[in-house]
Each structure stands twice: as structure tokens, then as C-alpha cells.
């Protein structure tokens, strides 16, 4: 396997407004020393509650959000050390698709222009070559050539997500960051888009950083998965390992919260693990393990000392009492 992306100790801090004239500027540490790697042709899922830092991690990894520390090795070179000009040249290697296919497409532009735009901006190919590429991409994502000159509002939500995907692929990127790409879609349409993303990954050898709150979706698309909690990765593993034998109590709680056809009201199931309360504030992270106050297994040690990621079989887990 060749490594496409290796992120080491990535940290992102956001400066917040000063509460008073002479008060120190407060910082919110949204991503706290996160490390992971992504192999070519594979998908890494990032899961976790709202505010856990999934989007910020992915954005910092492709330098769309400024990191305050760490390294991002993309095919061996550290993106965080590139000059702006060098970074601009590398932009074509990464692309993004978002949750909301409604607001991410310019409503006044024809979809053919929307899909071609990244090539225009980066000056790729001749006018004819670009147009030919648009037609090719349209077919690749399952749209018809007679739809090229329509506007975004003339498409359904699923078709709009296909347009975003076509646009993302125009520059032949090697890494696609997908931020909740199917969350806004109906289940039936969601399956169509997931199958498309799966097929594109295999056919084009793409790698995905795939953010989702739906564990079933991650299990389906991704080979590997990282679970985030309050800006840190608390467990990372190949999908089989994580879904079959979750090690961190938070991962276990996430899995027991996900609605499942296997749990029937008529059979009187009781959720094995119930999570209460909310995550702590990122402005004032606890001294010990961030999950301690909600964790059924927490001991004094957990409240005093932050657990480091350590290896257990195929899994990396940050917990004093894993398993």
C-alpha cells in the first residue's frame, strides 16, 4: 500500500474575541494533536458528535483552515510548509463535496459551467478539451448530456449531489474530502449516491476522507475509521475491528445509539449503553480524559490523566480501561 496522506499532531486553534479590553485573547482548540494516515485507494471515515472537530480536521488537512501546528504529508511533502504559490499548484490534487447540494451550487449558473469552472480557474486544457471533459464527467456520475444546459434548481437533491461530484472530479484529484455528503438526502437517494462514490473510488483509484455521523454509511464506504471526541481521535481502526469489537466506551455508546433494524420494539430491546449529558465545552477542556464525566467506566485516574493513543491489536485507542 502506498500512503497518500499522513497527518501528524495536527492542531487547530481558533482565536475568539477578547471578553474584556485587557483580558487575554481566549482560544478554542478545535483539533488537538490529531494523527492519522490514509492509503491510496482507501477511504477513512471520521465520525463523532457535532462539534467534535471533524470538519475542522479535514479542512486543516487540505489547508483550507489554518493549522496551528503539526504536519500534513501529502504524497510525502508537507502541505503546511508550501508557499501559497506552491499550494495553489497542488490544489487540483484535492477536492471537496459538502452536505448541502442546494447551497453549494451557484443558482444562476448553468451546470455545464459549474462543472467546468475549476478547470477554467486553474487554466487546465483548451476550451474544447475542458468541454469534452465535462461531458465525460456527466456520464461518469450518471447524468445525461441533454441536461448540461439546465440550472441547479431543475435537478433533484440527488442529481445536484451528482453535479457536485462531477465538479469535484474535473481536476483529476487524488483525494476527495466528503463532508456529510449524503446526510441531506432521502434514504433511497442516499443509496444511489453511496453506490456512485463507491464505484468512482474503485474506478479512479480515489482516496476519501469521509465525514459522516451515520455509522452504517461509514461502514459501507470506508476501510478505516477514526472516532473523534472533543477535538481528539479516541479510537482508530480498520472498519471490521472497530464495528465488531469497539474498544473505547464512547465508540461503544455511539454504536449502541445508532438505529438498527436488528433492534425490535416487539422483542423489548433495551439499549445496552446509554449516554447522558453533553460533551464538555472545548473552551475549557477537562484535565483528564474528555469523556470521563459521561463514561460508565471512569475512575480517578481518568479524571486526572489524559489517556494517550495506544495499540491494541489492529486498533489504536485512547482509554485507560479499553475493551
Amino acid at each position, binding site marked *: 500500500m502506498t500512503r497518500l496522506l499522513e497527518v501528524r499532531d495536527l492542531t487547530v486553534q481558533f482565536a475568539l474575541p477578547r471578553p474584556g479590553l485587557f483580558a487575554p485573547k481566549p482560544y478554542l482548540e478545535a483539533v488537538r494533536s490529531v494523527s492519522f494516515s490514509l492509503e491510496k485507494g482507501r477511504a477513512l471515515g471520521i465520525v463523532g458528535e457535532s462539534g467534535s472537530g471533524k470538519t475542522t480536521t479535514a479542512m486543516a488537512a487540505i489547508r483550507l483552515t489554518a493549522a496551528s501546528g503539526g504536519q500534513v504529508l501529502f504524497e510525502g511533502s508537507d502541505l503546511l510548509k508550501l508557499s501559497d504559490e506552491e499550494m495553489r499548484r497542488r490544489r487540483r490534487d484535492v477536492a471537496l463535496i459538502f452536505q448541502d447540494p442546494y447551497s453549494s451550487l451557484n443558482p444562476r449558473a448553468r451546470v455545464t459551467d459549474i462543472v467546468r469552472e475549476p478547470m477554467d480557474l486553474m487554466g487546465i486544457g483548451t476550451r474544447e478539451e475542458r468541454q469534452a471533459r465535462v461531458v465525460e464527467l456527466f456520464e461518469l456520475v450518471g447524468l445525461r448530456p441533454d441536461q448540461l444546459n439546465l440550472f441547479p434548481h431543475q435537478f433533484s437533491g440527488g442529481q445536484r449531489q451528482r453535479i457536485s461530484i462531477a465538479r469535484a472530479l474535473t481536476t483529476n484529484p487524488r483525494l476527495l474530502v466528503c463532508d456529510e455528503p449524503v446526510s441531506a438526502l432521502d*434514504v*433511497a437517494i442516499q443509496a444511489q449516491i453511496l453506490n456512485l462514490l463507491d464505484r468512482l473510488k474503485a474506478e479512479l483509484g480515489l482516496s476519501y476522507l469521509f465525514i459522516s455521523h451515520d455509522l*452504517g454509511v461509514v461502514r459501507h464506504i470506508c476501510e478505516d475509521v477514526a472516532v473523534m471526541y472533543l477535538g481528539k481521535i479516541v479510537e482508530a481502526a480498520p472498519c471490521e475491528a472497530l464495528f465488531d469489537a469497539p474498544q473505547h466506551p464512547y465508540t461503544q455508546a455511539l454504536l449502541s445509539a445508532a*438505529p*438498527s*433494524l436488528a433492534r425490535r420494539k416487539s422483542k423489548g430491546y433495551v439499549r445496552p449503553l446509554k449516554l447522558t449529558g453533553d460533551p464538555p465545552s472545548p473552551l475549557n477542556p477537562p484535565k483528564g480524559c474528555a469523556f470521563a464525566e459521561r463514561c460508565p467506566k471512569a475512575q480517578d485516574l481518568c479524571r486526572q490523566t489524559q489517556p494517550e493513543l495506544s495499540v491494541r491489536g489492529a486498533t489504536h485507542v485512547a482509554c485507560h480501561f479499553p475493551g
Partner: protein
Amino acid sequence: MAPLLCIEKLRVTFRTRYGEVTALDSISMHVNEGETLGVVGESGCGKSITALATMGLIPSPPGRIADGSIQLAGEELIGANSARLRKLRGGDIAMIFQEPMTSLNPVFTVGDQIAEAITLHQNVSADRAFTDAVALLDRVGIPSPDRRARDYPHQLSGGMRQRVMIAMAVSCRPKVLIADEPTTALDVTVQAQIFDLLNEIQRDFGAAIILITHDMGAISEMADRVAVMYAGRVIEEGSADSILDQPQHPYARGLIDCIPTLGRAERTLKEIPGVVPPLHLLGAGCAFAERCAFNDRARCTTEKPRLIDHGHHPAACHGVEESRL
């Protein structure tokens, strides 16, 4: 015993620029005391309109209840005067919506809003109502309810706001609680808490719940019975077990098969191709025909299938009727 809430042959139409369209086409469903009815279907199938009709809240115009009956404990709600409907809403029938922020008033504390709902329907003093409100906040699992009762909606997290909505909805011990996609905007962990809470509330208060969702997983965990809707019709109806184990209509089967599961991954998900057709383009045949893999009968495009029990539970499909599926 007659069902607690009984919807019969309900037809709702909307005036649009394409002319009059039928949003609910003669739908029937019912829910019994202490039971949860799951209503499932893709976006635009008529789930919310069914809920709004039951609450007497169809915007009119452009909407209109053209035909049918909705009975609560034997009392006809269609045509009931607005004073009576106002009394029922938040009293015997309560509803919680997808986005709690739209139904909470930003300028009043949540404690005052729950107390207000209580005094509207019960003859108690303001002090007593506030004490009851705090007790309800405690009941729905809000930590430090005394203090939280004095918070404004924006000071609470999304999950806490939805709990406040539930507290308000159950404040008058409704007989029927309608929850329209109550967890769509929330994290799975919070969704699990809300689902568990709804189940506890049902045990404590004996309310019937109508849970609207597009997630068959949620149906499995929450529902006793299920109505599957498609393009303004109920296309399958039965016990949750029967529908999940032996879905009859290709659409119901599709909704179950297309969700990726937590178990071992199968490589390709079964898709339902295409999209729900817009109401003004519905023809004479089965509304699902153009997305259906079993649409080879002439009848599929010329005649609407009726909801008939062919053995397991009622389904509206010509293919099932001819038992070729």
C-alpha cells in the same frame, strides 16, 4: 375496542400553479391507546400533511380537506369549530416538530413557556404551573431543571430544546403525541436519548405516539405498527414485525434494503432508482411504477392498486395482488 385515533379515507388537496393537486389520496390509518404507529416514506410523500390535518393545521387556502374523517376517541375532528380544535391542540393531541427552535418563542424562558401551556389547558395558578414545568423538565432529563427553567431557548443545546418540546407536549397528558421527524437535526447519541425518552413517556403516560420518520431503523426500534406512504397514499400497513420481516410492496422492501447496516458490509447497496414524482404529474397508474422493477403488468400504468391484504398485511401493488412477487 375502537382505535383511539382513526383516520378514514382522508383526502387533502392543494391549489397550485399546476391546478389542484391531491396531496393525500384517500388515506386511512389508525393508532390504538398506548401504541406507537410509525409513518415512513420519502420526502414529499404526505407524512407531515397527515400530521397537520390531524392537528387541524392544514394551511387553507391553498390547502383543503376535501373528504374523509378523523376521529379522536369517537369525536369527529373534521369540521369541528376552531375553538374546540384549539382546545384539543396541546391538550388531547400534541405535536413535536423537527426543528424545536421554530416552535419555541425566543423571548420567553422555557419554564414560562411550559407553564403557559399548562395554564392554557388546566385550571391551575401560575405558581403551580411553574412548579409543574420544573418537574416536567426534570422528568425529560434536563439537568438542574430549576436553573434551566429560567433559560431562554437559545441557551440550550439542540437536544435539550427537543426535550423542552417534549415536556411541553406532554404537559397536558395528551392522548395522542405526534412526533414529526423529532431527531433529524440531532446527533445519533441525542437521537437515542430522545427515542428512549419517548418510550418512557409512553409507559408513564399511556399516550399513543405517531412517529414520522424516513428511517426504517427508527421504525424497528420504536414502532408497534407501521404505515408506509408513497406519493400521498398509504401503500402498505401492518405490524412492524410483519412489515420488516415480510415487506410486500417493492417500495417498502426497497426502503428496508437500501439502508447500509452496521453489520458486515455488502458491496453494492440495493438502490431505488429515480425520485418521487411531483404531485401534478401523477397519472392514472401506480405512482411507483416508473421506479419499480416489477412494473411489467399493463395495469401498473393504467390503474391505481388498492390496499388489499394478500396474506401478511395490506399492501397496494398489482404484482403482490397477482402474487407474482
